[in-house]
């Protein structure tokens, strides 16, 4: 026996956990966020001169996170509004993700939703009653969004065309489609569409954003019910988990894919409607503002569970707004929020590994083995 037993097994051995206590899982996630925040502090230290000059202000740095969203009632409303829009898109993507259909086209589906609704407002605004206009705008947004979701789904079902790449490309087709219509509609060459006079969602309870928040709240509840308590939702879960099981019980998986993507696209269209009719009354190529991508992370971090997604959307929005406040208070580039959100996301993404896998080190097991030999 020339070799020692130390060389026998690899140093680190991984195995999949069969289960983990939910509390433990949340502790790991919490620890990850804490670590992420700590690193953010470090990065901020490097990037922000004022902080370097006066390290004592680091406490203020963290306080500003909270301040960004909650210091005034205006900020709270703004926070809730942004959260709602982000959550709405994330909710829209969730049925597709539950089916393991990687729809990363939320950005485009939302944008065509805005386009559809603004197009109706542009052509019909003032010519028909406002209530009818709002309904037609809604319908247009839903139809456009659904169409944008349907196209990749059809090809996925028929020829198994890669949906990730397809939906990604559709985002840019949508962007330039909007640019095209802006050229058509705006004749003065400025490229910006003035606010439309007609087709604005009514104000509820004296608060500009309340209606949007309520709509998204209702949508959250509806989608939660749809996914968990309806036959459709059940079929989505079965297809997502195993196509073979679906076939075994006679579910037509292709039909489910198409139906679900219609829904997913239409709900993105709804988000577009909330942006177009509820907030902007106008459209730019940036109307979705990258939220279609952020929503993917919201949905994924929330484990595709609408209730949990309220929390993850809340967290990401908190970081966004807090970091924006930091840029303001500490006088740094407006892009800082992205950096901070990115860092914390890395930690949250990475920590899932420790929830799903167990890490064994060689030492412990070897000792046991040696004793057994003796």
């Amino acid at each position, binding site marked *: 026996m020339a070799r020692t037993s130390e060389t026998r097994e690899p140093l680190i051995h991984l195995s*999949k956990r069969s289960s983990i206590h939910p509390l433990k899982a949340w502790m790991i996630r919490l620890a990850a966020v804490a670590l992420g925040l700590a690193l953010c502090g470090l990065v901020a230290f490097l990037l922000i001169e004022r902080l370097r000059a006066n390290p004592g202000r680091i406490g203020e740095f963290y306080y500003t996170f909270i301040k960004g969203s909650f210091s005034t009632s205006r900020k709270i409303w703004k926070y809730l509004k942004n959260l709602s829009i982000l959550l709405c898109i994330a909710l829209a993507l969730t049925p597709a993700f539950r089916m393991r259909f990687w729809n990363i086209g939320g950005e485009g589906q939302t944008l065509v939703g805005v386009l559809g609704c603004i197009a109706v407002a542009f052509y019909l605004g003032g010519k028909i009653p406002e209530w009818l206009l709002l309904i037609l705008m809604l319908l247009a947004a839903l139809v456009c969004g659904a169409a944008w979701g349907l196209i990749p789904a059809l090809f996925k079902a028929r020829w198994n065309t890669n949906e990730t790449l397809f939906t990604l490309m559709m985002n*840019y*087709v949508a962007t330039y489609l909007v640019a095209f219509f802006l*050229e058509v509609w705006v004749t003065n*060459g400025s490229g910006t569409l003035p606010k439309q006079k007609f087709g604005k969602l009514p104000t509820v309870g004296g608060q500009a954003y309340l209606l949007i928040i309520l709509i998204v709240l209702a949508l959250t509840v509806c989608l939660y019910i749809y996914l968990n308590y309806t036959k459709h939702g059940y079929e989505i879960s079965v297809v997502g988990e195993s196509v073979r099981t679906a076939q075994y019980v006679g579910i037509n998986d292709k039909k489910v894919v198409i139906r679900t993507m219609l829904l997913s696209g239409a709900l993105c269209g709804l988000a577009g409607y909330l942006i177009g009719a509820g907030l902007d009354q106008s459209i730019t190529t940036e109307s979705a503002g990258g939220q279609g*991508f952020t929503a993917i992370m919201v949905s994924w971090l929330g484990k595709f569970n609408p209730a949990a997604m309220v929390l993850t959307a809340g967290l990401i929005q908190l970081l966004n707004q807090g970091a924006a406040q930091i840029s303001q208070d500490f006088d740094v*580039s407006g*892009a800082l929020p992205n950096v901070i959100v*990115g860092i914390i996301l890395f930690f949250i993404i990475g920590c899932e590994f420790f929830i799903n*896998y167990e890490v064994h080190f060689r030492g412990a097991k070897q000792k046991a083995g040696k004793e057994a030999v003796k």
Partner: protein
Amino acid sequence: MNIWLNFLIDSLAFGATFMYGSTGEILTEKAGHLNLGIPGIMCMGGAGGCLVLNMIGKSGLPGFLIVILGILGALTLSMLCGLIYSFLTVSLRANQNVTGLALTTFGVGLMKVIMIKLDATVYLVGPKQLYRWPFAGRQDSLQCLGVLFFLAVIVAIVSSWVLFRTKAGLHLRAVGENPATADAVGINVTKYKYLATCIGSGIAGLGGFYYIIDYMASQEAYLSLEAFGWLSIALVIFALWRPHVTIIGSTVFGVLFSCSSYITNISWIRVTMAMKPLLKMLPYVVTIIVLIISSVRNKRENQPPQSLGLAYFREER
């Protein structure tokens, strides 16, 4: 110079941005990783290069050294991003789409934070002429065919050669197609995934650097960079995962993208301003069509790598 020739060269030069981006992305995808962080990585590459140039731009260093140090700066930051991505997706087996998107958020943001602090008179004005060798100082589009442009063509060709003509390339493709098989014949799957992702990221980062320092050579160039990262991912599909095809593909994309500014000059084609966005949409539409055709024809050689997007865990079967 003839307007057509000028247009063609301009497209070629423009295309080099995504020639880098998609060559880098192809290497990563061939290892089975769909890296949606490429836009962020390209941005970080640009920032890295400019950061170094900001330090040495006005020093008395010889020109070629400045060029090389700038390139190294771009490589360093973009490869660091690649390292973050590979650690999360390879070692920690995180979801590739989500990781990539987070990396893009991070990369684009950090680039903006960095770039805003840099002094364009230092990192851009002087070094620009060095990078534009041998055509520096010309007034036509030939001026953009500089060091980094030729490097892009070389990198694309060498990448193809490595991928399809060497043992390392064979191993890399095996890892992306079927990691379990590669593992069984003793290929270090993790090592290949890390290397491909990091080298690919480095290459993509050069694309961002090229765009800022040479093709656009303007202070605001970095603001429009992200979009071309996404176009690079489209080009991967268009090129059917072959780096040398990106040379042609990037030119086609360049033509489609920049023809709108030329086409309005031509009297016999009646093009309204409104057509411009539609022309810019064309690269994506063409990519979708290529994606559909290749899935309908279902020719094995033209498909995405088989294990693209899937994490590999040996004990899972």
